[in-house]
Every structure is written in structure tokens, then in C-alpha cells.
């Protein structure tokens, strides 16, 4: 399977790192990083699709705006900027319950 490349790191990743998957693609990550940093390092700008079907990227980066919510380990609405990566974590971008379950706004 094709791995995602990290092209945006300012300093090299420490040698002790692990993999997480983003949209089913493996990518390197290391202890202490947020999910958002991994996404940005791998060149992701589009992160979330909100309940009103509008895509957004991380905006505040500090947990305030809720514009970076992704599905992490099968749980929806986790803020990428506030969640630290863990080995084997699975992250899915641009998805939400409204979309997955076909719920419509009136």
C-alpha cells in the first residue's frame, strides 16, 4: 500500500517513530505530535466536512473553532488539533455522521 509522505517537517522526526493511518494510508508519526500536525506534514489542507457538508481545514489550531474534526479510531468529531497520535491510530478525514448515515438537514 502506498504510504503518505511527510514533506512539511521543520526538523527531522526522531528515530523512534511509529505508523498511523490516514484515510487507510500509513504515515509516520511520533510521540507528542497532534493528529493535525501529522495531517499538515503530509500536505493535507482539507480535513473536515461539517454537519452542513462544508469542507474546512484547521483554522484556529488550538481547540476553539471545531473546524478540524475527524474520525479517529471509529469515533466521529474528534478535534485533530487536540488529539495526540498513538501507534496504530486510524484517522479518517472529510467524513461525518450526517454523510455516513445519510441524515439530512431540514
Amino acid at each position, binding site marked *: 500500500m502506498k504510504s503518505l509522505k511527510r514533506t512539511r517537517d521543520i526538523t527531522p522526526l526522531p528515530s523512534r517513530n511509529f505508523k498511523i493511518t490516514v484515510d487507510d494510508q500509513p504515515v509516520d508519526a511520533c510521540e507528542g505530535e497532534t493528529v493535525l500536525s501529522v495531517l*499538515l506534514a503530509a500536505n493535507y489542507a482539507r480535513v473536515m466536512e461539517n454537519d452542513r457538508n462544508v469542507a474546512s*481545514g484547521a483554522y484556529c489550531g488550538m481547540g476553539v473553532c471545531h473546524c478540524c474534526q475527524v474520525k479517529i479510531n471509529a469515533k466521529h468529531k474528534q478535534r485533530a488539533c487536540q488529539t495526540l497520535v498513538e501507534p496504530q491510530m486510524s484517522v479518517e478525514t472529510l467524513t461525518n455522521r450526517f454523510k455516513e448515515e445519510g441524515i439530512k438537514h431540514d
Partner: protein
Amino acid sequence: MTSQTHDKVVIVGGGPAGTAAAAELARHGLKSVIIDEAPKLGGVIYRGPLRQTDSLPHLDDNLKRAMTALQTRYQAHSDSIEVKTQTRVLGPEGSNQLLLSDNSGLSRQPYGHLILATGCHERSVPFPGWQLPGVMLLGGVQLQLKSGLVRPGQRMALVGTGPLLPLVACQLHKAGVDVVGVYEASPFAKLAKEAVALLNKPKLTLSGMSMMSYLKKHKIPFKYGWGIVSAQGKEQLNSIQVAPYDSQWRAQRDLAQQVDVDAIGVGYGFVARTQLAMLLGLDHHYSKVSGYVPVLDEWHQSQNHEAFVVGDSNGLLGADAAICEGQLAALRLAWQCGKITESQLSARSTKVKNKLARIKKFRFGFDRFSDRQSGLLSLAQPETVVCRCEQVRREQLDKAIAQGVKDITSLKMRTRIGMGDCQGKTCSSYALDYLHQAGLTENIGVIKPRFPLDPIPFTLME
């Protein structure tokens, strides 16, 4: 659920203010608990890298020194300070308790005394295209540089006002980002007028000047009196329009220029984070610079509730002032607990108060320079979304106001602004400014913070 004894001082927020308060309390024999959402103390400004790294090539020595100083301040007193990181305060529970959530679940934190040091967040200014992925707030950009060690874009511009613009521009450039332009809304002449105020902190002023010369040396355009007009892109950002601003910060659209970028940082100011103070029932008043801030005495203590509020959460003065305020509150508390005498209190606090006064003079100079003008409000076009969570457009605000809405709660009920996941933190400063501009200044109110302040995952309730 766990409970602990409540002789301790509980400090919400482990940034410069909270950490300084904890260290000062420890010096006088008082134990404290610091609660912080982040994995590490330091606050957004001094947290530093979250992952292991051997060097920080993109950060200047002043910042590195300040980050170390904060860690040292904590380390020297770590025996007396309990730190709960990655822990969120959901709100007050009963009297003298806070409800917390962390990875392992919910817990209660009783307190004998409370110091709030919850900091601030950035003010959002909606403009066409601001929802595009790639548009970030300036502090968000900086957090990725400082804590994430990641470049948020490859070709970037910065728009906004204030001293963070040149600072972040330098950091981005040193991190290897192609910085194609920095646009400061206020004209240079206005900065020159503040020379006397800026001399209250000569070192900071000098470092600002050296940043400007760094930008010049690397041919990074820095334009005073310019700002954002709009952002363009299909799925994500690929260009912005910038234009000269007039004295009211109205964009002169006929002179707009296009700049190709893949990300931008937008920074038109901050808002004090006072949701917890409001839930606790502290009295607040409105300030144009900081938003709603608690009413406090000279020691930063609220009269209608004995909590102290320090740092940017009681008005935006930055990290140096936050440290002073944390110390002042701690000294006062030490005196109230009988740990120091009145004369010790006055001896030590006089020094801190003088320092704070100098910082304020400097800071007020910048506030006057960066005082946001009404033109910013008209960047949003009728069809521009002003509340991201609920996708409320400006024309819906116009309609509601035309129909007689006079306060923010009615505006919320009529349009759904502030009803989404962020609970109005992103849209409410614009909405308040917009109501003010419509001539509504009396009893506008605030978007009331709700309990829990942060969503409680269902998994924690099982």
C-alpha cells in the same frame, strides 16, 4: 469519579500567568494544582515542541529563553505544584468544585481558592473565502511552527495587525516557507506616533526592529496600511486578494492585488477566554480590545466571587504582563491565607505593579496602533458565511437586525449563529461588532457559555 482534599489552590491554565501564580504561591508555602488542556505547560506562547527534537532552527533566542524560563519557574517549585495536563474543565459543579474530563473519564476537582488563567483565543474576521482549507488564524500557524514543528503551507502570506505579524513571518521564513507578503492593516505613521509608548519596553521594541530588518534582508514585502479582501480557491486556498486599507480599514477594492499562496495566517486580534469565568457567575464588562472581561480589583480578584482572573483572560496584555498578574494574585492570596504579612505583601507587590505599569504603557501603544476599524466588518459580503458551524450568512444577520433584533441572544435564536460545535467562540466577536455598528450598544449581552464547556464524549458517560 475521584475527589481530592480541597485545601489547595486550583489554577485553570498553565500558561505564563498560571505557572507564575503557582510558583509564587509555592514560594510562600501554598500548594496548587494547575489544570491545562495541553500536554505540556507553557500556554500557546511558551509551550514549545510537543515532540522530541534536537534543534529549533526557526525560533529566535528570546523565545527559547522565555520558554526555558517558564519551565525553570515550574521546576524550582514542582514539589508544591500538581500538574494535570490534557485535562479540560467542563464547568463548575456544586459549590467549590470543578468538573474535569481527561482520557480516563470525568472527575471532580474541589478547590479552596481559584485562579483562572484561561488565556485568550483569536478574533475571527469573516471575509469571502475565509472558510477555505488553507486559511488559518495567525496563532494557529504559529502553534504548528512552535509546537508541531510543521510548516502549515509552502507559499504563505500573513494578513492582520500587530506585533505577531513580523514575528510569525520571520519564524515561517526560517522554517523554510516561502513568505510572499505581510500585510499590516494599520499605517506606519500611526506606529511612529506610538514611539514614546514603545520606549517603555526598549528591548522588545528593538527586537521588533530587528525582525523588520530580517524581513527586509530576505526581501519579504511588509506593507503597512494593507489587508485582506478575499480568498480564492476551489477545494482549497490558492490565492488571496489584498488591497490598501483607508484610515477606517475599508479595503480599496479597485487597487486590489492577487497573491498566489497555498496557506495564509490571519490575525486581526484576540478575545479574552472568559467562558469559565462567566459560568462561575463573575461580573463582566465589555472592552473593545478584549471583548467581555471580568470586573476585578487591583489584585485581580473578583468581588462577587472570590476567584482571581489573571493573564489574557482578563484583558489582552501579553505574556510578560500575565506573569506579573499571576504573581500579584498569588501574593494577595498568600496574604489572605496568612502566609505573608501586610508589609511583605506591599514590598513585593510594589515591584511587580511597577513592572506591570510599564508593560501596560507599551501595550496600550500597540493597542492604539492595532485598534480595529469598522471597515473590517464590511469585508463580509451579504452571502459570506459569518458562523462556520451553522453556515449563517451575513444577510441573515442584516435581515434579523432589520426586523428589530437588538441583542445577541435574539440574534442567535433568529439565525442560529453560535449554536454549533464551537458555541459561538468563532462568530460571536463579529456578531457583537456588527450589532454595535448597527447602532445597538445597550444590553446586547453575550452568547452565554453552556455547561459543559467542552463536549463530553458519550464513551465517558457509559
